């Protein structure tokens, strides 16, 4: 089965500024991929290119199509919420549902209504009358009611309180996700998504710095807390990052030799957020 998203030498520049610099990655079907990077790293440019919102150089194939020339066709099978995408303020909730139901063959009105029924939002309300969190909930209900093969979420829970965020991710994993779907998600809050991701893509300065499935993480990266007296010896194994913690120093290794590292202490799989900090600072 071919990859759902395949990018080769994907490049995007704004004037002289290179937002994506010959980026290569693939996303397989049925995965939940976190595209993680600091502000200005190229996350949004990558998403825009994948969604057909911007022209780019290089090769890109999404759901079997070149996205920029085929955005309308692509949106039959892909859906997205972009961080800056806000619903128009003049739109009524029921109009939004009618419109999407009218133009989108894969929209399931009953599912949208069921999702909205869990909130206080009624159909007669205009978007401008809703709080920021409620607007996001309406947008999520509209998007999750689409039977899409690819769902792209760019900072989906921005502006939601902790309860709404938690229930959103629960709904995403329990009600929405199945083996036919693929989710690509970006967020600053790595901790919030790290338990649901199956793959991570770290992006920095327009380049992919880590491309790894969560399952492979333990084989590819290791962290060991080393006491001060063994530090010089441990550093000889060339950690790529270190940070002090509780009187010891945690050293991070790539392609670790687990047997040798075990001599310095307990070898642990770094968490996604630790790895993010280690890789990008």
């Amino acid at each position, binding site marked *: 089965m071919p990859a759902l998203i395949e990018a080769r030498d994907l490049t995007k520049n704004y004037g002289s500024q290179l937002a994506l610099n010959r980026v290569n990655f693939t996303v397989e079907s049925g995965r939940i991929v976190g595209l993680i990077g600091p502000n200005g790293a190229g996350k949004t440019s990558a998403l825009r290119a994948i969604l057909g919102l911007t022209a780019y150089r290089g090769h890109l194939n999404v759901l079997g199509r070149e996205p920029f020339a085929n955005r309308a066709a692509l949106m039959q099978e892909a859906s997205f919420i972009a961080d800056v995408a806000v619903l128009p303020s003049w739109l009524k909730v029921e109009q939004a549902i009618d419109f999407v139901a*009218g133009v989108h063959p894969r929209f399931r009105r009953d599912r949208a209504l069921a999702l909205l029924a869990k909130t206080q939002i009624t159909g007669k309300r205009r978007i401008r009358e809703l709080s920021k969190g409620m607007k996001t909930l309406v947008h999520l209900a509209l998007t999750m009611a689409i039977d899409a093969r690819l769902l792209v979420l760019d900072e989906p829970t921005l502006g939601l309180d902790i309860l709404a965020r938690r229930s959103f991710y629960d709904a995403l994993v329990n009600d929405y996700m199945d083996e036919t779907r693929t989710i690509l998600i970006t967020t600053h809050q790595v901790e919030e998504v790290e338990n649901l991701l199956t793959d991570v893509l770290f992006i920095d300065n327009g380049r992919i710095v880590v491309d790894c499935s969560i399952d492979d993480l333990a084989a590819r990266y290791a962290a060991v807390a080393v006491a001060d007296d063994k530090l010089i010896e441990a550093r000889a194994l060339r950690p790529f990052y270190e940070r002090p913690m509780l009187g010891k120093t945690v050293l991070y290794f790539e392609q670790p030799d687990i047997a040798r590292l075990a001599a310095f202490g307990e070898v642990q799989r770094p968490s996604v957020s630790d790895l993010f900090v280690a890789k990008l600072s």
Partner: protein
Amino acid sequence: MHTYMWLIRREFWENRAIWIVPAVIGVALTIAALFGRIDFGAAISAEQQRMIGPTVLLAYGFTFFAVMSIYSSWYLMECLYADRKDRSVLFWKSLPISDTATVLAKLFTGVIVIPLVYFLAADVSTLLMAFIVSMRAHAYFGSVLWQPEPWLQLHVLWLYVILTTAVWFLPITGWLMLVSAWARRAVVLWLVLPPLALYWVERWFFGSHFVGSQLAERTLGYVSRAFYDRSNPSAWATTSIGTDTLTTPSSVWRVLNPIGFVSSPATWVGLLVGAAMIYGAIQLRLRRSET
């Protein structure tokens, strides 16, 4: 087709002024008919009476048409800018609707749907006015308004004007949409300054007036292209009321000049230039996702 229907419906949701403004004009004119003064004296001849009816109907239609032209221009100027400004453009782009369909639906709304809504409002309020005036004037004046021929002529005139203005003013429509899709701010300045700059640059450096004369021709030349002017004696008739003389169309059938309009090269050049600008607006819409 189905998608276009939803896109046009969406324009009505967003721009409620499309029907509110003509409704307000209709209500105002109806109130005027209810409470205004109806007194033309008795000193008008049968022939003058015959002409008052069509003139009143025309004046009604013109009121609606003048407001419609202003509103429609404003609509076209805003239509590809507003959703970039409020950042909802990415929501619309998350749906399986091509940018071509979006732009064409807005074009169709601006040049056909909005004029038709005003046409409908003009029709309803003219009917109301004629009815009210007939009742108030005890059918004396009413008989002037209830003639089938002027009504039919007015409807043909409306449809003819909607179609021919849509074609003739397409370069202006296209320019409005192009700027609407282009401008990141100050839409009005982008609208006005480039043509003005072109005009002055040409004048200073070449001493010629091509741009200026083209602009003048496009804005002012419509009537002389689509209608026979007063030099055509069979189309226009002169009546005298007291010491005044009044020149009016002898009949709508005689002033319309569809053959002259269609056979004029300027019509076709304008159509091509307008189409090119709308193509440009679609290309900008494809690429521009933020203000």
